[in-house]
């Protein structure tokens, strides 16, 4: 197990991403953040704070649960259904630029599901993807627009993002999963 990011580096990465978002979109007009449950949600909230610190404007922030859109939902031979959590998007996404936020970008399947889910909420002007860590190994043609850290990994490793709001600590660690079999997080 090795630490890839500590709290300081995470916070600097998010501040940098906030600046990149402002530069690319020329301000926060028509922007909205949507975090993918679970850990995309606190990251989206932190980005909203960072954007406000820089620009002074509030950016609407929502939470998206993609479980019902997963492509492996009914494919498990036996086993429990993944727990569904509430989607909360308390604003219209029509004609907005949506910043979709997740912690780790891996196969791209979660993002595919999130795109399908978002489209059911309306017709955004654009969707841009923000991830804290891009660990490679894409299985779908998906690319992030803003990346906290590019982290080359092997398939035998797993990337754990821990956040103060959920896990009590800010850190990103790389773990070997040899003993636990292949990682399932997409």
């Amino acid at each position, binding site marked *: 197990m090795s630490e890839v990011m500590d709290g300081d580096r995470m916070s600097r990465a998010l501040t940098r991403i906030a600046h990149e978002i402002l530069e690319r979109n020329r301000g926060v007009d028509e922007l909205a953040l949507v975090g993918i449950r679970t850990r995309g949600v606190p990251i989206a909230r932190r980005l909203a704070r960072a954007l406000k610190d820089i620009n002074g404007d509030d950016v609407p922030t929502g939470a998206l649960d993609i479980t019902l859109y997963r492509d492996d939902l009914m494919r498990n031979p036996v086993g429990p259904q993944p727990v569904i959590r509430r*989607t909360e998007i308390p604003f219209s996404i029509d004609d907005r630029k949506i910043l979709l936020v997740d912690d780790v970008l891996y196969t791209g399947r979660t993002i595919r599901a999130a795109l399908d889910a978002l489209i*059911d909420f309306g017709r955004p002007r654009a969707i841009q993807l923000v991830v804290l860590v891009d660990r490679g190994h894409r299985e779908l043609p998906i690319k992030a627009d803003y990346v906290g850290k590019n982290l080359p990994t092997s398939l035998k490793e797993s990337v754990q993002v821990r956040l103060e709001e959920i896990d009590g600590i800010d850190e990103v660690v790389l773990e070997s999963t040899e003993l636990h079999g292949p990682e399932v997080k997409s």
Partner: protein
Amino acid sequence: MNVDAPVLPTSSQGAGVTRLRSRHLLGIAGLDAAEIALILDTAEAMKEVGTRPIKKVPALRGRTVVNLFFEPSTRTRTSFEIAEKRLSADTLSIATATSSVTKGETLIDTVRNLEAMSPDMIVMRHASSGAPHLLSRVGRAAVINAGDGMHEHPTQALLDAFTIREHKGRLAGLKVAIVGDLLHSRVLRSNVLLLNTMGADLCLCGPSTLMPPGVERFDVKSTSSIDEAVDGADVVMMLRIQQERMSGHFIPSLREYFALFGLTPERLRRAKDDVIVMHPGPMNRGVEIDSEVADGPYSVILEQVSNGVAVRMAVLYLLAGHDSAEPLKA
């Protein structure tokens, strides 16, 4: 488990369960408190789907659900159909006249024929208690009981509990009065089982002729005075007088019943200030409930109907996770 907290990861990754033990939902009997909480938590997420511009998610794509109703039903059948469609399941509804089908061979034959078309789930309502249980033993599909005789109506109790939890934030410790035709009510049985499991404080009220035999085994208070039952209640649940199931004289007249057991605004004043009034429908206005109460500010009767869709989506979703396609022994 903190039930009124927003559904955050802590509530579901902690002590809660993530699956139902049975692949059928035949009744509330057999569900424990954690499983009930899982269904209600899942229903909260499902309720949000119903508020979207596109009220449909692809979760049950390619699954076939048969709604097999041997008894008339508008609310429950429509509610299941909408729930199934919102989850993208393929559905078909079969309504059979009550009289033509009796328990036994005919039912088994009907079921075998349906099974031959390999549905994944069957939602069943039947006038005979235990019919869905029989179906679950005969077929391979997952079975959801949508009301069997005078036995159970589990999704109704779950949507009642969901509605109470939305208003009160909890179920444990609430004073719940259930008033009406207790004898013929499957809703009563499911509700008593559920609310007891979740730690509510129940009081049953009805004329002695409509008290189910063995009511003392429920281990809840019972009374024949509606004033006593409603006194200090957080929730008043009215049950329908089921004339169609009454094979003898249970009450002198409907007017007499209303005079003694009808829920009127005056009687409701004895309850807590923030009481909610519930009714599983269909209502007999002026028999068990005064129109002024049914349409009044304390009534959550139509919310119950809306919540029914979310709760049934939750049940369908959770049961679909169990694989029904175990290979047939040839």
